[in-house]
């Protein structure tokens, strides 16, 4: 068995102090971790995107006031109180970043992946978004402009990818399966 890391011991010491001082119980922390591990994730966002593809009124509502439009789902996880959905079109591709830290719409996408929090992505995607997206495996068509959306203290962004060409041949559940977390951040097609 390897020795615990210094940070692991710090975290352990901190939790023990918080419990002893009555600020929380270990079971409360377990419940929060379980919630984010099991019930908060990109499947939630994928459902919203699929609905927007098949329901024009919902799509319009989502683009006008996304927080209000998704309230009906009652997703857990938070960080969507001021959600803005930006739509990919034939001429514009959108991509999301948080240049200052790691702000992210947890209720729709779960917790951010490691690369989203790394300094390299946070700084480079602003300066050369097309190149960064390409390095991540998706080439934005040459005729499209790329718009970068930087999360602020309050606003969280979600990309509405373009639907597949043969949209009518899918049902809503199948469409949900076509949507990836990366597509909703804007580093994949959908």
């Amino acid at each position, binding site marked *: *068995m390897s*020795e615990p*890391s210094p*940070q*692991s*011991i*710090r*975290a*352990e*010491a*901190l*939790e*023990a*102090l*918080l419990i002893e*001082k009555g*600020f*929380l119980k270990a079971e*409360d*922390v*377990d419940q*929060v*971790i379980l919630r*984010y591990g099991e019930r908060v*994730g*990109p*499947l939630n*966002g*994928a*459902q919203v995107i699929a*609905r927007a593809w098949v329901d024009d009124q919902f799509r319009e509502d989502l683009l006008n006031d996304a927080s209000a439009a998704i309230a*009906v*789902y*009652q997703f857990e996880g*938070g*960080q969507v109180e001021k959600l803005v959905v930006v739509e990919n079109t034939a001429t514009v591709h959108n991509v999301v970043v948080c240049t*200052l*830290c*790691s*702000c992210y719409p947890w209720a729709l996408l*779960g*917790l*951010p*992946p*490691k*690369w989203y*929090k*790394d*300094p390299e992505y946070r700084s480079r995607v602003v300066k050369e978004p097309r190149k960064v997206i390409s390095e991540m495996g998706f080439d934005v068509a040459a005729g499209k402009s790329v718009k970068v959306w930087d999360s602020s*203290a*309050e606003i969280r962004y979600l990309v509405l990818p373009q639907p597949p060409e043969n949209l009518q041949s899918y049902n809503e*559940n199948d469409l*949900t*399966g*076509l*949507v*990836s*977390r*990366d597509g909703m951040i804007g580093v*994949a097609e959908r």
Partner: protein
Amino acid sequence: MTDQYPLEHELAPPQANGELVFDDPWQMRVFGLARTLCEQECYSWGEFRGELIAAIKCWDRDLDQQPWCYFDHFLEALLRVLNKKHMISQDELTNRLQQYLNRPHGHDH
């Protein structure tokens, strides 16, 4: 109205979501601590975010920069906000850390 978009139907998992969010169990635990305390209204997430940005800026400016580990800054931000709220002082943490570091090897196995 609330039943308009029911959640209970079976859905395929979205693609490409298999990356690890946490490299180490302590990172998951620290995330859990920070969220639990926020949900118990010990501080707002905005307050925590401010400390996280400050901790990351310190790393950005550090001439003797350590390798990047997001959760190092996340833990630092949590300690800062707990200190500001007079919930856990630096001395308390240092004393407890010292006790833990003095434990015999394999104490919990």
